[in-house]
């Protein structure tokens, strides 16, 4: 598989932005500036970056409680994301949603979701809209291995298959549903085999390799866009952090965590192959890192300047008028 310099650097930049966003969020949480709960996407960046590279602004995604990465990869404004986490009026949801409900409908992001598997039927419905109105838009549902055991997974994949809907189901197998390891949650080793039960292609990729995700997603998106129907794409991955910020991770050993973190880092991998393939030099990559940190700094500064979300008009947002 070949990938050009521009694409490689775009993918790298998106992944680095997600990682930096998560690092800064964690820091802000530690400073008690963010409250509630946040779920870090660190380690899984290659999936959101590789898939969303094929999407247009008018394509739709549904995301998860671990949704910062999808939001960023779909083109969200970092300042408005931080503002949301900080409970500001200038946040994406004006402080009503927080980390687990960030949405950016202007970019087709139909929202993070606090319910495991909650976004799967919604993406299916978005694909129904595209089919019904005869557009070539597609929908992508991101969800974890945990959601693959919800009833919504079964019902939605079946509906999409019988109707040939333009939707891509992206299962991010990060090895744990909260604390339950996949080995104890699935009797099959490869989640992608479930696709054959619905009559759609099931593709398993290495979620550490953004090139592999990018390639598999290209095919799945093209298939959906051309009216050939849905695909289940399963990306094997690993989350570097706990389920949520502050998770004591009693279900994992220190050795496992450290070993995986070293072995499984899509960003370190990308640096290595980008340099080895002579697509860019170390200095180019370092420059991107520096630029991303600057962008994050400016986004946080902008967010912190925003006024606290106002409670005055809360009831006005319940119903559309």
């Amino acid at each position, binding site marked *: 598989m070949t990938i050009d310099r521009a694409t490689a650097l775009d993918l790298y930049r998106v992944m680095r932005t997600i990682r930096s966003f998560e690092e800064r969020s964690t820091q802000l949480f530690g400073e008690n500036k963010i409250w509630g709960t946040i779920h870090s996407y660190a380690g899984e960046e290659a999936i959101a970056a590789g898939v969303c590279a094929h999407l247009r602004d008018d394509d*739709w995604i*549904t995301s998860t409680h671990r949704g910062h990465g999808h939001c960023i990869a779909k083109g969200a404004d970092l300042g408005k994301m931080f503002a949301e986490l900080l409970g500001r009026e200038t*946040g*994406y*949801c*004006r*402080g*009503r*949603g927080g980390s687990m*409900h960030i*949405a*950016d*409908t*202007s970019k087709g992001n*139909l*929202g993070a*979701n*606090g*319910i495991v598997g*909650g976004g*799967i*039927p*919604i*993406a*299916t*419905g*978005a*694909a*129904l*809209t*595209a*089919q*019904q*109105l005869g557009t070539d838009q597609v*929908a992508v549902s991101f969800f974890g291995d945990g959601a693959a055991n919800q*009833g*919504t997974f*079964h*019902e*939605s994949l*079946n*509906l999409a298959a*019988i109707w040939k809907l333009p939707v891509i189901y992206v299962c991010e197998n990060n090895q744990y549903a909260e604390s339950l390891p996949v080995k104890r949650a699935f009797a099959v080793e490869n989640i992608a085999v479930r696709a054959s039960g619905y009559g759609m292609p099931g593709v398993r990729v290495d979620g550490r390799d953004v090139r592999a995700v990018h390639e598999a997603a290209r095919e799945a998106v093209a298939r959906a866009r051309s009216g050939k129907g849905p695909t289940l794409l399963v990306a094997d991955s690993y989350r570097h952090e706990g389920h949520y910020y502050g998770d004591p991770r009693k279900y994992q050993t220190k050795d496992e965590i450290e070993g995986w973190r070293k072995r499984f880092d899509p960003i370190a991998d990308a640096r290595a192959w980008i340099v080895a393939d002579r697509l860019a030099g170390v200095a180019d990559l370092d420059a991107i890192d520096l630029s991303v940190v600057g962008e994050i700094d400016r986004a946080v500064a902008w967010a912190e300047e925003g006024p606290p979300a106002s409670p005055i008009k809360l009831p*006005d*947002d*319940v*119903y*559309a*008028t």
Partner: protein
Amino acid sequence: MPPKTDTTAEPTPGAGGHSPPTREMFYSEALNEALRLEMERDERVIVIGEDIAEHGGAFQVTAGLLDRFGPTRIRQTPISEIGIVGAAVGAALTGLRPIVELMYVDFSGLAMDQVVNQAAQNRFMFGGQARVPMVLRTQGGSGRGNAAQHSKSLEAWFAHVAGLKLVMPATPADAKGLLTAAIRDDNPVIFLEHKLLYRTKGAVPEGEHVVPLGQADIKREGTDLTIVTWSREVLFALEAAGRLAELGIAAEVVDVRTLVPLDKGALLASVRKTHRLLVVHEAIKRAGYGAEIAAMIAEEAFDELDAPPKRLAGLDTPIPYAQHLEKSVVPQVEDIVAAAKELVG
């Protein structure tokens, strides 16, 4: 069965000639007509649900629509309640105006996450970024021997969720007008029909007929007590009011029609006139919507009341099967008469 078209149109009596002509039709036909007219008016309107195509829906509400609009707009599904409702949420968020038919309200538990955590809250959670213009049509109620899993009245579940609207029409005319308004509304609307109303008949305005959400209707005027009710119990209350009149008691029957938003003004005005409140519903009494109405009246018009507000509602049991048992757990006409006499006496 397709909508009847051969009935003679007749003007609404006493309407000064300005009201549109009406036609006698079944409640199910009135709903069918609303669906057909709205689908003709707006191509974004689709119907999605089980057995709604050739079969015409379990209660024949979508009869004939497949032939008129084809299988993509009359989108028949496998038995997948949460998949169907969730797809409707996603479709509504992205530009369609889907109408879901769930065969029985008792099945809504299977779909409840998409109703409560998604449809109802998306707009709020997203800070106003989204609209979810969908209607969830389903039916409930007892009286057909369908027993506990097919006979409940679950309006209180939905009324307790911020972000939903809740409609329960009692007459064919209201069924048509309220469904039209629900389809045009930009919010998720729960539209609860009653299985024993489908074969009731009434005069229904021809052509476009919109009954705005949030307006109660005084179905019979009176001065001695206010009976507030909805859905099938409206018919029972009207019959009871007739018997009460023979006893010299003038009962006013207020059909709330829309439980959310509730037309508080109409209810308060009626109670200020009659000074007595009887709330009647088929759903079980405990934490039923009648408690909300009684509490609202007590809070806002306590000084107007000549007697404590009274609730007449279903027993706190599942709906039993045998005909006489089934009748015994929900308010019947004679129960309303007795409760009204007690309240006035």
